[in-house]
Structures are given as structure tokens and as C-alpha cells.
């Protein structure tokens, strides 16, 4: 018999069973380290009170990246049009406020989620039968067509100049918005926390495991009876809804929305954030979005050209040498430290 030489090889079979079982049973439990990003986010509120508007944008991007991670990182589906759902959410709230007088913010988030989710469901049902270049082009074309449609009715959408001067009701009728965006930051943070909790539960659920299975070996999934297409449409719909919420938050925190939210640039940007942070790792979205936004904020002010070059270079290097992103590097470092401690 082949010799088992791993750290999980215990003495008695019975002990091994329990170990194996408890690994799975405890997997979803919150780890202490998970509090870190939230503590940092709260600390930022106190340490950088004058950067709250920027802070809100970072939170919005984290949510956007999180939504993409569900499809890209967990289910393994590569698309080029995720910005479409962001844009749909952004415009649901924008048009709602500008044309329908719907200025209540929290219900706006729900509306955005529903509309974006619906579009995600309808497009996903058709498009997720395809993969590779075909899917890339179909999703890209869909996003561009939405943008063009918006441009066509620029009387409604405000075109590339956008819908300016949107106003929203105070939160729950009480918390008004101050010039420095403090209320908005907390609002975005709470929304992110809620969304994150939902995403985390999905990822650790049997459904989440199935997504990983689809990513790892779709042939096997078919052979064991998995309704692959149905699963993909489901996760795509959820991801679209979340991207929609992110877009809605964007409009609310900026009091402004233009058709540039549909840009391919946006879809590319969020993919870059994810790969920088690390796909399929929940917190990769946090790291990647935060690092990207902070770098962009500092560097593109110095020289937009150097920033663009730098981001391109970073991407190339990441793909060649740090495929699992910053989270991957952190994990490797942690393993290294653990090994050193053992010996």
C-alpha cells in the first residue's frame, strides 16, 4: 500500500474519522483574523475623517469586486460585462430619484438588487450555455448594447454627462447627510457588512461547494447529476443583484450617475482588483479593491500615464508570479511561518 506521509495521517482510523469530520464541520466558523478588515474600516472612520467620500467609494468597489468573485473566483466563469449590472443598479436608483421621486435610499438598494438580478437572470439563462471567447464576447456585447441604449435615450439617462444633482432622503428619516460624507460611509459599511454576510454564507453552503466543483471539474459535476446550468444561472443572478446594490450605493454616495458606469473599463478594473487581491478567497475582494483604489488615488494624481503603465505591469507580474494575488502571498507567508515554527 502506498505510504501516507501527510500531517493529517493519525494513528487510529477512528481518530482520523473524527478529525476529518470536524474539519468540515468547523470550516464555516468565523476566525479571529476575519475581524481585521472590519476593524480597519471602522478605524478609518476615526483616523481619516476627511477622506470619507473616498472611503465610501472603496467600500462600493469592494462590494462590486465581491459580486464578481462569486462568478469568477468561485464558479470559474469569465465574463467581460459585469459592469452592466453595476450600471443597471446605479441607474435604477438614479432614474428613480430623478424621474420618479423615489428618494428613499434603503428601498432604493432593494429595487436596484431586484432589477439588476432580474436582468442577470434573463441574460444568464441564455448566455451561460456558452464558455470561453464566445461567452466573453456575448457578455461584452450585452454590456455595450445597454450602454448604447442609454445613449440613445440620453434624454432619459443624461447620456455621458449624466444625471446630476440627485438628492436622497435622510436615512430612516433621521440621519442627514453632511458635507464630509460621514453618514454615507457608515451607511455603505453597514450595507457591505450585510451583503458580505450573505455572500459568506453562500460560499460555505453546499451550493457554494457545488460552485467550486463546477470550477474544478465540470465534467465530473455533470456525471454525478449536478444541474450545472441551473446552478450557474442562480449564482449569476445573485452576483448581478449584488453588483446592482454596489451601483446603487455609487449613485447615492456620489449624488450623480453617468453612462460611464457601463464602460468596459469598469469591468476590466474590477477584474484587476480581484486578481490583485486573489480570486475565490472572499477577502481578496477587500484587499484588491482597497489596494487598487488607494494606489490609484495617490499615483494617478502624480501622473495618469505612469499609473496606467504601473497597473498594466502589476497585472502582468501578478499573472506570471503571483497568480493567487495578495491573499495568496499572505497565505504562502503564513504557511512558511508555520513550517519554520514546526522545525
Amino acid at each position, binding site marked *: 500500500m*502506498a505510504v501516507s506521509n501527510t500531517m493529517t495521517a493519525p494513528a487510529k482510523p477512528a481518530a482520523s474519522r473524527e478529525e476529518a*469530520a470536524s474539519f468540515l464541520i*468547523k470550516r464555516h466558523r468565523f476566525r479571529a483574523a476575519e475581524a481585521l478588515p472590519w476593524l480597519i474600516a471602522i478605524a478609518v472612520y476615526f483616523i481619516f475623517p476627511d477622506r470619507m467620500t473616498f472611503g465610501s467609494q472603496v467600500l462600493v468597489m469592494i462590494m462590486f469586486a465581491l459580486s464578481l468573485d462569486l462568478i469568477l473566483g468561485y464558479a470559474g466563469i469569465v465574463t467581460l460585462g459585469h459592469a452592466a449590472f453595476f450600471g443597471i443598479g446605479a441607474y435604477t436608483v438614479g432614474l428613480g430619484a430623478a424621474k420618479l421621486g423615489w428618494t428613499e435610499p434603503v428601498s432604493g438598494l432593494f429595487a436596484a438588487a431586484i432589477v439588476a438580478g432580474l436582468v442577470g437572470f434573463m441574460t444568464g439563462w441564455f448566455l451561460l450555455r456558452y464558455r470561453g471567447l464566445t461567452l466573453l464576447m456575448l457578455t461584452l456585447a450585452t454590456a455595450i448594447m445597454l450602454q448604447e441604449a442609454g445613449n440613445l435615450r440620453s434624454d432619459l439617462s443624461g447620456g455621458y454627462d449624466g444625471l446630476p444633482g440627485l438628492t436622497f432622503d435622510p436615512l430612516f428619516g433621521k440621519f442627514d447627510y453632511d458635507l464630509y460624507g460621514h453618514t454615507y460611509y457608515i451607511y455603505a459599511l453597514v450595507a457591505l457588512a450585510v451583503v458580505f454576510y450573505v455572500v459568506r454564507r453562500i460560499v460555505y*453552503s453546499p451550493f457554494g*461547494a457545488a460552485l467550486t466543483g463546477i470550477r474544478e471539474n465540470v465534467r465530473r459535476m455533470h456525471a454525478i*447529476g449536478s444541474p450545472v446550468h441551473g446552478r450557474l444561472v442562480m449564482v449569476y443572478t445573485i452576483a448581478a443583484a449584488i453588483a446592482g446594490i454596489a451601483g446603487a450605493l455609487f449613485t447615492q454616495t456620489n449624488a450623480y450617475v453617468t453612462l460611464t458606469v457601463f464602460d468596459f473599463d469598469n469591468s476590466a478594473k474590477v477584474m484587476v482588483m480581484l486578481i490583485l487581491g486573489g480570486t475565490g478567497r472572499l477577502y481578496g475582494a477587500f484587499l484588491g479593491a482597497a489596494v487598487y483604489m488607494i494606489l490609484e488615488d495617490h499615483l494617478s494624481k502624480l501622473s495618469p500615464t505612469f499609473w496606467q503603465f504601473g497597473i498594466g505591469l502589476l497585472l502582468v507580474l501578478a499573472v506570471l508570479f503571483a497568480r493567487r494575488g495578495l491573499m495568496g502571498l499572505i497565505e504562502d507567508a503564513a504557511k512558511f511561518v508555520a513550517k519554520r515554527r514546526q522545525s
Partner: protein
Amino acid sequence: MTAALQVESLNRNFGALHVTRDVNLTLERGARRALIGPNGAGKTTLINLITGVLSPSSGRVLLNGDDITATSQAFRARRGLARTFQINQLFRGLTVLENIVMTIGERDGENNNLWRPAGAKRSVIDEALDHLQSLRLVDDALRLVRELPYGRQRLVEIAIALAQKPRVLLLDEPAAGVPSSESHLILDVVAGLDPDIAVLIIEHDMDVVFRFAKEITVLVQGAVFTQGTPDEIMANAEVRAVYLGEDGHAAAQKAGQRGGQHG
């Protein structure tokens, strides 16, 4: 009694290439049938047609009497049809235990649940561990599949198929690629399969075939050349000429000497 699996006049063309010709095959409950034939005979293609990876040009496939010819792979799997692949199709980045839990999850519809933590249903984990225990894989439960030696990976491949609790099991060269020092593990498993399951095994190793099979189907160039019991096949001069050759004959004789029918 309805056969567990019935293949009726199955044909498959790829343009002018007729890869499966008018194949008829029946697997009763508890069947132990070996599918043998020279390379390129179309054995894996036949399995692919039965499982739904390919759709036939004509003919029918019936599972427990139900016509499943127009259904998807997943549909057939959920109705009790399991298979192993000639080259392992595993979830290499996951642990052995997770591979089995995933399979049970699909089988029972657990994987439709988006909210409950995956480890919360103790019964699923226990059942998975039972499967691993019966294949002596428990020690490897927490190892990533890609870190296992090939022979043990092959066992995981079979474990997945068995975890589906199939009524019909199609094994595509289960011992292929396994070093001879480890192949007895596979063969023990195959020999110890639940007597209620209908099993079809593609094999080249005549040792395995004559040890395991109660019936043999010989496939040549996509068509059924002949079918029968191991004794009949052994005695068939044409088969010997076409396929078994010298070595196969020796193995067949040896198996015959070990006595009688095998199960």
C-alpha cells in the same frame, strides 16, 4: 423483470465514420458484464452514449425500463447511472472527503441549499466517511486529491461513483494507469461490489475480466462481435483469433482452472 439497463440498436456516426453499429446490450440487476475488444473498437464511445455524453444517431437507451435516450447526463446520473472515466475526473483541488461529500450533496439535493453551512449535516459527512472507510481511504480524507499517488486517486474515482448509490455502474478501465503493486486494491473493490448493482466494466486485463465477469460482450469496430459466458468466449476460436491472442488465451485458461462461474 425489467432490465437495469437496456441498449437497443444503438448507432452513432461522425460524418462518414460509423463508430457504433447497431449495438444491443442488456444488463440485468446484479449483472457482472465485461466489455472487451481491440483498441478503437468503440468501447468508451458506447459508455459515452449510455451516459449521455454523446447522443446517438439512432437507437434507444433504457434505464429500469424508462427511455432516457433524450435526457442529459445529469438526469441519468440522478436516476442511478454512475460511471468512472478512463482518465480520472476528480476535484483535484479539494480534499478526498470533500469529493465524496460533494457527490452525496448532488445525489440528495443538499447542494441546492444556499444557506446552511456545508458541514452542518452530520449524516452526510458520516456517510461519506463510511464510503471512504470501505475503500480504506479514511487516512487520506483530508489530503488534497492532487497530492495522492495515482492508484489512490483511482480509488477516489470509484468512491465517487459508489457514493452516487447507483443501480447501474459503468467502469471504464478502472485499473488503467495503476502500478501493478497497487492494482489489487482496485480489483478487491470491484470484486466486493454490492450484488444488487448492475456493473459493466471495460477492461483489457484478461486476468480481471475472467475473475470478475459472469458475462462478456466483445466489441469489434463498433459492433457487437459476440456475447456469452466467459467459458463460451474462451472456447470461441474466432474471438481468440481476433482479440485474445496468445496471452489472453493463457489468462483465460488460468481463470478457468480456478473454477466455475465468478461473481
